[in-house]
C-alpha cells in the first residue's frame, strides 16, 4: 500500500517538475509571445497592450506561474494563445491519432525486434552481419527520409497505401512503419546481444543436452533473460516515439500531438506546450510503472524479492 502511495506521490512530483521545467525553459528562451502574435503585421504600442491584456501577460511571471498551477489543480489547462481555443479542445482531438500511431508502431517494433533477433541470434556470421548492418542503417537514417522513401515506393509508385491523413487502417501502416523501423532496429540489436549472452550460459547447454532444438532454447529460455534490458529500453523508447512522431506526422499530413507541440513551441504558445509536456510526462510515468510490472512477469526472482 505504502509502495503504491509512494509511487503515486512520485508521479505527481514528476508531473509538477516537468511542467515547471517547461515553463522556465519557455520563459528563459529568447523572444516574446507578443512578438510572435504580432508577427510582421502592424505593430503599435496599442496593439501590443491589447494583446498583453487579453492574454493576462501583464501580471508578474510568478503570479502567472502560480495562477497556472492553481488552474491546473482544478483541471483547467487554459486557452491557447495562438489558436484561441481551450487547450483541452486543441489537444483532445490530437491524442487518439497519436496514440493509435504509437500503438501500431510499438506492435511493429516488437515484431521487428523479436523476429530479427530470434532468427539471427548466434546464427551464421554473414546473415547476422547483414541484418545487423541493415538495422544500423535504419537506426541512423532520419525519420523524414524513411517516411519519404516508404511513401515514394508504397504510395506514389505502387499505390498500396494512401499518402496522408487519419482515415482507415491502411493510412496508418506507412506512418507506423516509419516510426517502428528505427526503434525496432535498435531494440533488435539490444535483444540479440542479450540472447547471445544467454545462449553462452551453462543452462543453455543443459537445455540443448535435454534435446531441445536451438530455436526452442532461444524462445523458451534465452528470451526471458534477454528481455529485461530490452523492456527497460522499450519503456523509454516508446516515450521517445512522441518526439519522433513530430516528423512522421508532418511528412504524412496526419493530425497528432507532435505537430501541435512543435508549432506551439515555435509560437511560444505556453499553455499548449505545458499541456503536451504534462501529457508526455504522464505517459512516461505510466510506461515506467508498466515496465516495472513487466519485470515481475518476466523474472520470477524479482517477484520473490518484491514479496520479501
Amino acid at each position, binding site marked *: 500500500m505504502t509502495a503504491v502511495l509512494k509511487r503515486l506521490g512520485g508521479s505527481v512530483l514528476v508531473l509538477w517538475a516537468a511542467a515547471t521545467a517547461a515553463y522556465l525553459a519557455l520563459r528563459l528562451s529568447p*523572444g516574446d509571445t507578443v*512578438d510572435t502574435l*504580432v508577427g510582421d503585421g502592424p505593430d503599435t504600442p496599442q496593439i501590443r497592450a491589447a*494583446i498583453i491584456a487579453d492574454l493576462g501577460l501583464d501580471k508578474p511571471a510568478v503570479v502567472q506561474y502560480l495562477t497556472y498551477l492553481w488552474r491546473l489543480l482544478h483541471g483547467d489547462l487554459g486557452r491557447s494563445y*495562438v489558436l484561441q481555443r481551450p487547450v483541452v479542445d486543441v489537444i483532445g482531438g490530437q491524442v487518439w491519432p497519436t496514440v493509435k500511431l504509437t500503438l501500431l508502431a510499438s506492435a511493429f517494433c516488437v515484431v521487428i525486434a523479436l523476429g530479427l533477433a530470434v532468427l539471427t541470434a548466434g546464427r551464421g556470421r554473414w546473415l547476422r552481419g547483414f541484418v545487423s548492418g541493415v538495422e544500423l542503417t535504419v537506426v541512423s537514417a532520419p525519420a523524414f527520409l524513411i517516411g519519404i522513401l516508404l511513401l515514394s515506393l508504397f504510395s506514389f509508385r505502387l499505390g498500396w497505401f494512401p499518402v*496522408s491523413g487519419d482515415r482507415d487502417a491502411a493510412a496508418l501502416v506507412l506512418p507506423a512503419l516509419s516510426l517502428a523501423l528505427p526503434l525496432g532496429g535498435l531494440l533488435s540489436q539490444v535483444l540479440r546481444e542479450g540472447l547471445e549472452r544467454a545462449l553462452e550460459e551453462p543452462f543453455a547447454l543443459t537445455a540443448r543436452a535435454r534435446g531441445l532444438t536451438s530455436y526452442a532454447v532461444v524462445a523458451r529460455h534465452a528470451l526471458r533473460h534477454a528481455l529485461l534490458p530490452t523492456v527497460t529500453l522499450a519503456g523509454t523508447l516508446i516515450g521517445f516515439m512522441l518526439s519522433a512522431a513530430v516528423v512522421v506526422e508532418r511528412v504524412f499530413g496526419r493530425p497528432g500531438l507532435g505537430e501541435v507541440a512543435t508549432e506551439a513551441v515555435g509560437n511560444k504558445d505556453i499553455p499548449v506546450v505545458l499541456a503536451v509536456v504534462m501529457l508526455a510526462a504522464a505517459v512516461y510515468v505510466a510506461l515506467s510503472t508498466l515496465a516495472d510490472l513487466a519485470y515481475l512477469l518476466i523474472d520470477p526472482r524479482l517477484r520473490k524479492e518484491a514479496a520479501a
Partner: protein
Amino acid sequence: MRRRLLATLAAATLLATGCSATEGSGTDAGAPIQGGSLTWAVETEPITFNPHQYAQAKARLLVWNSFEALLTHDDKGGYLPWLATAWTASPDGLAYTFTLRGGVTFHDGERFTAAAVKANLDQLLVPGYAPTVAATQLKNYAGADVVNDTTLVVRLKQPDAPILDFFSSPQGAQVSPKSFGSPDLKAGGPSVVGTGPFILDRYTKGQEVHYRKNPVYDWAPENAGHQGTAYLDEVTYRFLKESAVRVGALTSGQVDVVEGVPATEQELLAGDPELSFTKQLNSGTAYSYYFNQTHAPFDDERVRRAFRDAVDLDAVLNGVYRGTATRAWSIVSPASPFYDATLAKSYGNNPSGANALLDQAGWSQKDGDGFRTRDGKRLTVRIVLSAPFVRDRRDVLAQAVQAAVKQSAGIDLQVRIVDQGTANDAIAKGEFELFDNSRADTDAGAALSLILPKGAPINRHGYTTPELETLVAQGAATTDPAKRKEIYTRVQRILADNATLLPLYAPADQIAARRTVGGLRFEPTAGVPGSAYNVWVNR
C-alpha cells in the same frame, strides 16, 4: 519538358518588362460540369478560419470559399461590387454610403443586412478581438449608421482612401452576427459562418478541412467566372506541409490539385502529360535584403552599393531556382501596377565597381581568409533568418549570395537560421546588418507604409526622409491609380538611389493540377490562388 521550360523562360522575360503575370499550360477539362468532389493539397494549415483574424497570405485561398466581402478587387487596381452593389464617397471623403445586395443569406439562415455589416464593424472594435484591424485598417473609422436594410453609411474621422481596400480584404469579410456568440469565434470553423459559395462543415486539425456547396448561393461578383452556385458539390483541402509529398500525392492521383510547387519539383511536373501547371507572381513587395543603415558598415552608401553590385544575381537565381524565379529590380513586385520598370538593369553584377567602392570606403586591406578589413576589422555583415518563415529555398539563396559576395568583393556575409524567438531577439537588439522581407499585400502601397515611414513595424533599415514620408502618406490617401503610380514610382527611385535594399526575386504562387480539373485561377490583384468557386472536374 525543354519546350515547357523555354516557355517559362519566355514568359519570365515578358514579366520582367511588366506585362501580364500569369503563365502556364492548358487543361483538357472541357466545358464546366456541375457536381463532383475535389481534393486540394495545400501547404499551410490556417491558424484561424475566422476571416477577421486573418494574417496568413497562404491561407487566403480558403477564406473566399465560405466568406465574402462588400467589394472585390478587379485586375486594374479598382473595385467591383460584391455584397455591396454600389458605393459612394461624400465630397469631403468622411462618409461612404454602401448599397447592399438584397436576398443574401448567411449559412445559418440569417439575412445579410446593413445591421449585420454594422455588427461586424462593431465586433472588430471589441477590445482584444482584432487589435491589428482596429489599429490599422479601421483607425479612421468613426461609426456606421443603418439607414435601412440595404443602406449603410460608414463615417470616418479623416479621409482614408484605403478603407475600400479594407472592405475588399479578408478582414473586412462578413461573418454572421449569430456566430459572434460562438465559443470558437476567434478560431473559426463550422460554427463561424459567412455567405460564401461553400459551407465549411468539417475541420480535422492537422489533416484537412472540408467544404460542401452552398445550394442557395447566387451572388458571385462579375469577375468570378460564372454565376449561381459553385460547380463542385464538395471540396477537401488537405494540409501537406512537405512539397515532395504534395507533388507525389498529385502524380499518383491521390489529390487533384496542389498549391505551392517549389522550383525543384517544377521540372518533375512539367514532364507529366496528365498534369497542368500555372504560376503567378504575387503583388506586394519583392523578396529583398534590406540594409541596416543604423550602424556600420551599411551606414555608408558606398558599402550598400558595393554589396548590391557584387552579386551576379541572375546567375545566383538561376543556380538556386533553375530558371523559375523572376528577378526583382525594385522594392515593388513586378506584378504590381505600381512597379517602375525603368529600374531594371540599372545596377548590379559589377564586381570591379563594387571593389572600387569598398576601397574608397576604407575597406581596402584583405585578411588571410580573403575578406576585406578596415583598421584590422573584418567586413562582416549578418543576416538572421527565422526558420518558421524560411520557404522557397531562401536558406539556399542566402548561402548562394554569401558565396557570391565573398568571391567577388571579399564581404563576409554570415547567415544564421534560428527559431523565431531568437530572430525577434536579434532584431530587437539590432544585431543584424541585413534583414529579408517580402509582403504579399494586395496593394503594394499598404506594404510600403509598413516598411518605409519612421517607426513603421518593418522599418528596420532605419532609412527615412521627410520627402519619403510625405510620398507614402500621399500614396495611401489618393484614389486615382495614375496619380498613385506616379507617387510610388518616385518612391522606388528614391530607394534605388539610396541603395536601401537589394531586391532579389518576385515571390510567386504555383498551382499544379490534373488536366481534368478546369477553372482554376488566381485572385486578381492579390496574385494568390483563388477559391474553389469556379473550379470543376471532368472525370
